[in-house]
């Protein structure tokens, strides 16, 4: 484990758990995050897990850099004892193609497969949420099987609709709000990815798994209505241990 505690000014440190984007490294980030969440250190105000590091914001009047560094080193030394979290998979309905996924056919053509086979490749695996960033609720997710071979579109779009699901290589992100985007859009979810009126506004959290469930346009409309009425219940299951 090649860990570096990097100074980010007088009120934050970035604990870099590795130097690659991988499930293994991100799980180390999660472990430190969970440990500090379960037994908090006085002075830490918030933590931001990213791909390979954990940003720790703190109050120097409560704990100085040198004391925080010592405390983090202590936690890192005891990493093996940290109890792992349960791996939850959230099922996210997605309506592929048509107006919801204008690039579905192009994407299938890039992969030299039918749109049906493309949907199977996209929806047939579980995705891991490495982190949230860029916009509220914006999830960076990846699967570990059958990566696509295409990257971004040549010309990025100035605005794509919120609730779009975009793809490249093995990555598939949930777009919470309208934004500029250079990725290909394959579908949309009827679920709110970020809803500030809810106690927990965010559909997906870092460290959670996601499975896309293809739905028809009719089902999309029905789910959307249930979401509006507040009667929709998100389906989840526990990830099988490998």
């Amino acid at each position, binding site marked *: 484990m090649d860990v570096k505690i990097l100074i980010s*000014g007088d009120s934050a440190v970035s604990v870099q758990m590795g130097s690659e984007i991988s499930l293994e490294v991100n799980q180390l980030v999660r472990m430190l995050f969970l440990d500090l969440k379960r037994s908090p250190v006085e002075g830490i105000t918030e933590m931001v897990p990213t791909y390979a590091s954990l940003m720790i914001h703190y109050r120097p009047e409560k704990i100085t850099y040198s004391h925080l560094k010592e405390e983090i080193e202590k936690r890192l030394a005891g990493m093996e004892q940290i109890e792992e979290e349960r791996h939850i998979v959230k099922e996210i309905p997605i309506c592929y193609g048509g107006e919801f996924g204008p690039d579905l056919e192009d994407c299938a053509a890039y992969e030299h497969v039918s749109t049906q086979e493309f949907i199977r490749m996209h929806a047939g695996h579980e995705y891991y949420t490495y982190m949230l960033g860029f916009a509220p609720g914006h999830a960076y997710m990846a699967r570990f099987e059958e990566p696509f071979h295409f990257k971004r579109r040549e010309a990025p779009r100035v605005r794509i609709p919120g609730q779009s699901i975009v793809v490249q290589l093995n990555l598939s992100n949930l777009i919470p709000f309208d934004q500029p985007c250079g990725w290909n859009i394959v579908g949309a979810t009827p679920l709110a990815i970020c809803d500030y009126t809810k106690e927990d506004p965010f559909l997906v959290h870092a460290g959670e798994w996601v499975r896309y469930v293809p739905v028809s346009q009719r089902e999309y409309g029905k789910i959307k209505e249930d979401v509006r009425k507040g009667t929709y219940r998100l389906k989840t299951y526990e990830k099988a241990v490998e």
Partner: protein
Amino acid sequence: MGIKVENPGILTTVQDEGRFGYQQFGVSPAGPMDTQSFYLANILAGNKRSEGVLEMTFSGPTLKFEEENIIAITGADMSPCLNGEPVPMYQAAAVRAGDTLSFGMAGGSGSRGYLAFAGGLDVPLVMGSKSTLMRNGLGGVHGRKLQKGDVIGFVKPRTELPNMSARKLEPEIFPEKELTLRVVAGPQDTDFTEEELRRFFWYGAQITNESDRMGFRLQREEPLKHIGDGNIITDGIAFGSVQVPSNGQPIIMMADRQSTGGYSKIGTVISVDLPKLAQSVPGYRVRFVRIGIELAQDLYIRRLQKLDNLERHLGQGG
């Protein structure tokens, strides 16, 4: 019912200390650009230091008071007037129902003003905060800057505060044209050669027009060179992080910063120096001085102790 906005000014928003705890979900903290002027305005008005105030950028609003209250104005001098008569800044002042508080443009010293109301502003909490984050339409008054006709209530308006005559400070003088910012190196200072680091601290840069609540973009005569391409695996961003994208032109991340980013960060401007950067305008020259983490934290704690002492001396509105 509090205040009615007759003229909103260029960019006036509600800001409390910031929305903390949600950066892990991609939510920027927002909050005041100049924390020092923000804290002083609240302390003078007898508030909790973190209470929501109006942040006024480049020019201030015209507000009609529909209810009496006590106010305090700090930060940039925008020539505030009460019913046409100049009203002192850095001083608690009583305002009656029917009064009109108006501001002009920020003239010389500073670009952002802070207007605190005793007892605070009555805007809904979004994720625990009153701060406006315009990029995502969050917080404050409908997630946007103030508009003509907006009405904002007071939570607990006051007619008097303890130690009223003592609620008075020397106005802050902000640097003009040139400022020096102290920086703690890292987290990615090792993405630059020693030579290039020296150049960063030696030559300084100019603040460009592309500077706002999210970040201040700087222009250097000679762009900085990274050892690699300047891209890193996306990690966390702090208030004052100095990002250096592959074009070698630094961006200092400010109140509406994104929580994470994928550019190398050569250093971080220390907390006590960020207020003077927040009060700067495009065209100013910025110089960087490197200091260690111990001194940076010592300065941070000393600023805090001064604020604590002032607060204790004046007391709160209760």
